[in-house]
């Protein structure tokens, strides 16, 4: 029974990793941009939620509703005024710029909030749990996984069922021809990054409630997110969810054997998947 419990906890943890990764996956799928500052942007969102909580005395869930549109604007501006200028055939400039951005965000947060660890407090719900057959699951981890599924589902609907989603796919296929349809790729990219930052805000909410955070933890979140995206197959949103869950389960199993092995087990799972399926579990057909 202990194994069932461990795997379930791993799946729930995977929901958090999928949330870290969903925004990264969306942006990569549309503009082939790997945003090395994605983890730091999640941490930035967490500090933004914290600030709203402290200033207005709100519950973090409500504060996130205020933070989300602000983060959308941050993403939109970042893409319009910085990233669009460096996107091109050469993948190095955007990597360098987002790496620089990562450093800037970390130092900016350090200056503004110090290196102290912080936490978002959601009240009694944090300790609540539900009996689920033979095991007990925490309400917060369950909510995290449900949110991840809802986010991925919503992004998929957006991608495959809306006019904006058509523009996303067309632009990612062929930006020049998309322009001939009246689509403005730069606008499309700005909206996509804005949406990715809304997802990052949701990730930040659950990250900040689950564990302590400080300005330096972004890059580690980026690595989990990155692994989830690659395992799932670049550009596949459901694949990203599967990738997040796989890392979560691997980490939980590793930790069950020896707590020190938690992180390592996740990375090993990543390497094994890549060795067996170099293009990930659900590669997009036309990449």
């Amino acid at each position, binding site marked *: 029974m202990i194994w069932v419990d461990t795997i379930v906890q791993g799946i729930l943890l995977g929901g958090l990793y999928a949330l870290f990764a969903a925004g990264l996956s969306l942006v990569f799928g549309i503009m082939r941009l790997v945003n090395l500052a994605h983890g730091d942007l999640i941490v930035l969102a967490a500090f933004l939620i914290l600030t709203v909580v402290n200033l207005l005395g709100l519950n973090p869930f409500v504060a996130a509703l205020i933070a989300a549109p602000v983060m959308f604007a941050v993403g939109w501006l970042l893409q319009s005024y910085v990233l669009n200028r460096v996107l091109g055939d050469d993948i190095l400039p955007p990597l360098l710029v987002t790496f620089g951005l990562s450093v800037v965000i970390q130092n900016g947060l350090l200056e503004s909030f110090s290196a102290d660890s912080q936490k978002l407090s959601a009240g009694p719900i944090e300790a609540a749990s539900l009996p689920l057959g033979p095991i007990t699951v925490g309400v917060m981890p369950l909510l995290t996984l449900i949110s991840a599924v809802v986010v991925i589902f919503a992004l998929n609907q957006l991608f495959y069922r809306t006019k904006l989603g*058509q523009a996303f796919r*067309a632009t*990612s296929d062929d930006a020049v*021809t998309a322009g001939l*349809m009246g*689509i403005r790729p730069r606008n499309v990219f700005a909206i996509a990054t804005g949406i990715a930052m809304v997802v990052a805000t949701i990730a930040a909410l659950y990250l900040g409630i689950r564990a302590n955070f400080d300005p330096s933890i972004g890059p580690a979140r980026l690595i989990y997110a990155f692994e989830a995206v690659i395992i799932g197959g670049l550009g596949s949103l459901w694949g990203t969810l599967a990738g997040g869950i796989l890392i979560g389960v691997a980490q939980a199993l590793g930790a069950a054997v020896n707590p020190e092995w938690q992180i390592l087990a996740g990375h090993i799972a990543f390497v094994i998947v890549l060795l067996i399926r170099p293009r990930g579990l659900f590669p997009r057909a036309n990449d």
Partner: protein
Amino acid sequence: MTDAVLSIRNLTAFYGDFQALFGVDLTLQRGQALAIIGANGAGKSTLMRAITGILSSPAEAIQLNGRPIGALSAPEVLEAGISMVPEGRRLFPSLTVEENILIGAHSRTGNGYWTLEAIYDLFPILKECRHNPGTALSGGQQQMVAIGRALMSNPDVLLCDEISLGLAPVIIRDIYASFPRIRESGASVIVVEQDIGQALKVADHVCCMMEGRITLSGAPGELSRDAIHDAYFGVSA
């Protein structure tokens, strides 16, 4: 009386330092079907890219209904009323046939003559495979999708860049059979063709390009074989 829908004056175009167009002059009359012929590399596609705003031009060099559009971006040109069937069709692989058609109306629907239903009426075969990925079709069907996509914005001017390239003669005939209805819808048309016979059949005016210049211009009946030959290949020494 002449009524120019599109007029191009002294248009030049560059790829970096390489000059691809040298002072092109061209007038498309309202309702006209104009064919541009010329050998590979003559600059036909470059001219199409300049008109559609993929390549930028001096504002005054290109006028649509008297409005200078040379400096507009591709989306702005589309919204002004010019759409293109690009060379090589360039369907979006991530979109279904139907989505490929619909996306043509993404930011302009024009006078509404062309709707999804009207496109399916024009090319009934497309309705049967509307949920397939656009790139799963035969070359001829893909070309129909590309034409349908370009029509969905109900353009004043439709540009077709080598729509017969790589297609079997019966397919080419089927595709060109749609042209009377396209012209009936009010669109003026420019077709780029390497196939001179095809061009002379569909057009009421023919221009020949060579090395970035227009070397011959006239009605199909007025042009002698020799004149076309010289304009197309250069005067034989």
